[in-house]
């Protein structure tokens, strides 16, 4: 067991792209956890989606050793994602640490997630070390950024480090600050075991792998442990640390971070935030655990091939082991059959999960357009939360339609305040405050309907501010609004999976946009296909897909037979990836077009 006086646990937190993973690379390299030969950029971003998109999606814990003044230390670092959709990963990581490195890009300065993540670290009572990163950039704003850290985040910049993860500048100072300033973990090795489950994943060979941070007591191989929330007991078959790959060890003591394998096969039995204790010597008090994250957007996911339903369930369970922040529940649609209603923390989160499902699990999916959760007050006095437009009862039964409202914090160049205020006004926003952060930057706060921001506000902000604006939001409650359910009829029949909830004032415009979009997505058939948008029984928009009038191969002689047949077979194969609705085939993509049509152009 490692002497806990020489253990330091910290997370690296920052706004997206401020260089967390790149600094982690240097910490791994300079401590010898990886060799120069093993080195590659953002080595901890090992998911395919992470490498493709160049962002961190999953927090990653690594144990490294570093010797300072002749003393060997064990440093457990957690590299966290910066994107707002993965904030839950950050808050979970912080609970496993005593300190945090708060990185701030020396040119971009304090941004929306810098503030949000710093506050989260402050609330967790962590020792925060501010670090100005990317000082190698040709243009930096060091003094201004230091002012921003003081005034906006409220941290003393006296001991602020100045480093470059990419150029490897100042890395020793980072090690030294971690060791000198972050407190060693407390917790007695002789107390009953208490370990926090802060993550988990499904490993093909080992089954469920549980990530733990030991608070008190210790875990060793062969020990019988008890998961307090799940109420299950297991023998520890293997335990170890991430270095960065899983390396087995004999024992983990207070303060240490690692993994345990217990042969758990039932996927639903691991809960992030659970407390692991000794089966025979149980602690009376579980750790506080985590708040259950609030999903922001919901969509349906249906296997294209109906026989994949059970497999999809299993894959969703595996995925949720590795990502506690999304939810799923069985759902049926007349149009799409059996599937799941899934909840996500944001659009990027949704895209990533869908991509991971298709790539890692190899299930072809049809995804419906996402929407937020609505609160319905019914005439009979009941209150109902609806995350699926299909569940909205007939208009006559609804007393009040409530939608989620978010408090949105924008940080942006002062000269862009006008356009942002215009955008927020168009989107039914309620203005709160403006605060100037320095000569050229400001923080603007609005309350906006969540549905007006989750889908595309971030893109809009980026284009209005030429990339310099950032935003953060949190849901603060529900407010009544004049909302209606819009149905879509294809060839006279309602397609439930295309229904959506819109503001009455925008219904006609969106109905028209949606019909137009569907006309592009659905290919022509042998007959005419009317597409209509309707509020209750009233048609508010209509388009018609004309029938194919001529489609015939002119020549089919000896040399053409195989070639043309294969072409037709391929075309037919393409049709299999569509859903048959009555006589109309609707392609996968069409269901998502509801979303595009709901964005303004």
């Amino acid at each position: 067991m490692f002497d806990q006086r020489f253990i330091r646990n910290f997370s690296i937190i920052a706004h997206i792209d401020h260089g967390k993973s790149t600094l982690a690379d240097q910490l791994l390299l300079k401590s010898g956890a990886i060799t120069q030969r093993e080195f590659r950029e953002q080595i901890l971003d090992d998911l395919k989606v992470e490498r493709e998109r160049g962002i961190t999606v999953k927090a990653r814990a690594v144990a490294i050793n570093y010797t300072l003044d002749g003393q060997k230390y064990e440093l457990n670092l957690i590299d966290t994602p910066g994107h707002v959709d993965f904030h839950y990963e950050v808050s979970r990581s912080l609970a496993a640490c005593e300190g945090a490195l708060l990185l701030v890009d020396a040119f971009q300065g304090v941004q929306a997630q810098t503030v949000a993540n710093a506050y989260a670290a402050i609330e967790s009572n962590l020792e925060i070390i501010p670090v100005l990163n990317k000082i190698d950039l040709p243009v930096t704003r060091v003094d201004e950024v230091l002012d921003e850290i003081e005034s906006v985040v409220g941290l003393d910049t006296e001991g602020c480090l100045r480093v470059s993860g990419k150029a490897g500048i100042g890395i020793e100072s980072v090690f030294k600050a971690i060791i000198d300033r972050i407190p060693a973990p407390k917790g007695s090795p002789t107390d009953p075991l208490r370990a926090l489950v802060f993550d988990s994943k499904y490993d093909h060979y080992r089954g469920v792998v549980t990530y733990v941070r030991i608070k008190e007591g210790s875990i060793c191989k062969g020990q019988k442990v008890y998961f307090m929330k799940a109420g299950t007991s297991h023998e520890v078959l293997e335990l170890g640390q991430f270095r960065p790959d899983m390396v087995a060890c004999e024992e983990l003591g207070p303060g240490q971070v690692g993994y345990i394998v217990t042969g758990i096969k039932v996927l639903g039995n691991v809960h992030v935030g659970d407390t692991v204790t000794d089966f025979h010597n149980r602690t009376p008090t579980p750790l506080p655990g985590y708040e259950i994250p609030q999903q922001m957007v919901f969509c349906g996911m249906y296997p294209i091939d109906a026989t994949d339903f059970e497999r999809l369930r299993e894959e969703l369970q595996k995925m949720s082991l590795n990502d506690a922040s999304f939810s799923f529940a069985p759902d049926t649609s007349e149009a799409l059959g059996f599937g799941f209603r899934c909840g996500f923390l944001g659009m990027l989160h949704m895209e990533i999960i869908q991509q991971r499902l298709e790539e890692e699990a190899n299930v072809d999916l049809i995804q419906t357009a996402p929407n937020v959760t609505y609160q319905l007050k019914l005439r009979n006095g009941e209150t109902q939360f609806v995350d699926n437009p299909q569940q909205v009862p007939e208009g006559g039964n609804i007393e009040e339609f409530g939608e989620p409202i978010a408090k949105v914090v924008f940080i942006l160049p002062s000269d862009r305040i006008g356009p942002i205020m215009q955008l927020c006004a168009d989107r039914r926003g309620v203005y709160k405050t403006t605060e100037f952060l320095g000569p050229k930057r400001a923080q603007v706060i609005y309350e906006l309907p969540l549905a007006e921001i989750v889908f595309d506000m971030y893109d809009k902000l980026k284009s209005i501010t030429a990339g310099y604006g950032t935003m953060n939001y949190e849901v603060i409650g529900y407010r009544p609004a004049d909302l209606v359910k819009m149905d879509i009829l294809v060839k006279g029949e309602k397609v439930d999976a295309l229904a959506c909830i819109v503001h009455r004032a925008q219904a006609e415009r969106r109905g028209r946009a949606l019909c137009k979009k569907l006309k592009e997505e659905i290919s022509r058939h042998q007959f005419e296909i009317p597409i209509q948008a309707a509020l209750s029984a009233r048609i508010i928009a209509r388009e018609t897909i004309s029938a194919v009038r001529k489609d015939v191969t002119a020549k089919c002689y000896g040399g053409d037979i195989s070639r043309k047949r294969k072409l037709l077979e391929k075309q037919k194969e393409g049709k299999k990836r569509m859903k048959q609705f009555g006589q109309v085939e609707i392609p996968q993509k069409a269901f998502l077009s509801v979303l595009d049509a709901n964005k303004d152009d």
Partner: protein
Amino acid sequence: MTSRASEIGLSNEARPPAAAYFHVPFCAHRCGYCDFTLIAGRDDLVGDYLRSLDLEIQRSRIPLGTPLATLFFGGGTPTHPEPAEMRRLFEMTRRYFHVSATTEFSVEANPLDLTDEKIDLLTEMGVNRISLGVQSFSQQALKLLERDHCAHDVRDVMARLKSRFENVSLDLIFGVPNQTLPDWKETLERAIELGPSHISTYGLTFEKGTAFWTRRERGDISAVDEELEREQYALAMEQLPAAGYEQYEISNFAKPGFECRHNNVYWNGDEYWAFGPGAARYMNGRRETNIRSVLGWLARLERNESPVADSEELDREHRARELIYLGLRRIRGISRASFYEQTGFELDELCGPSLREQVQLGLLDDDGSYVRLTLEGRFVADRVVMEFL
């Protein structure tokens, strides 16, 4: 005739095919819409071609003197090489195959190539069917299609062919950019006036890799409107039968007794030999296609390698499905009885629901013994047959 042969054909697979196709890949110039296997302006290669063709036939190990019911020379332009070369070509093939007076012996020809000398040669070699690449009688269309002849040339050559050949077919193209319905009507009328025994009408398609494709991408030419193309096709299906040319396939019309027997082999799902670059054969249940590059084909044969680039052997069910796709091209359709005899599958068991759906859509007609495309179905035949693949 051939259909009979096919019905026996499958139960008696050892019998060699009685149909053969030769591909002659030479043209003076590549027309802008054409994506056939050919090499334009390289007449110097004809000698090599003849040598390689001889090798290919030899290596196919056909039983010497195999009798042919039908023999077809297509291209390219089989009438493009010099008379002496053409003679070598025909003589060579007749060394391997037995061609009799009952053999349908077709040659595709370009109107301007047909000098009296070449006509004499064709007669002497036993050719009894000429398929003439006329395409249009409108000067404007001919120019756009980059054809070297004019309407007058066609009348002239028809006059000279008349006394020698009872069986002459004209190829016509509709859907030519800028072609109006009256333009097309005129072309049909002129063709009928000349009294050929057979007429084929093809809707122009823009094939990837052709000059037309590029020109269309550039916006230089545009395909005719779908509705107009449909009317043009409809006009052919109305006008030609009225003049005594019965439609027997999607693109083919013939006076009674003059259907192309060779092409019927394809739509019957019968087997056939084939030689030359890009040629496709169907033998022992295998479909094979030769490499499409003329130079590649030459090189492979010279190096003693197989010229086959693609081959597939379909299982029973796929063969049956393919037969639907081919059989529906014929206007008389598919006979339930011979389908079962030929494939061992009952049509309704194999694809009852698709069948009923297409009937319901008014695209197929089902009289209990035959299933065929309706008039409406012919316009969208690809969509219909796709349902059965």
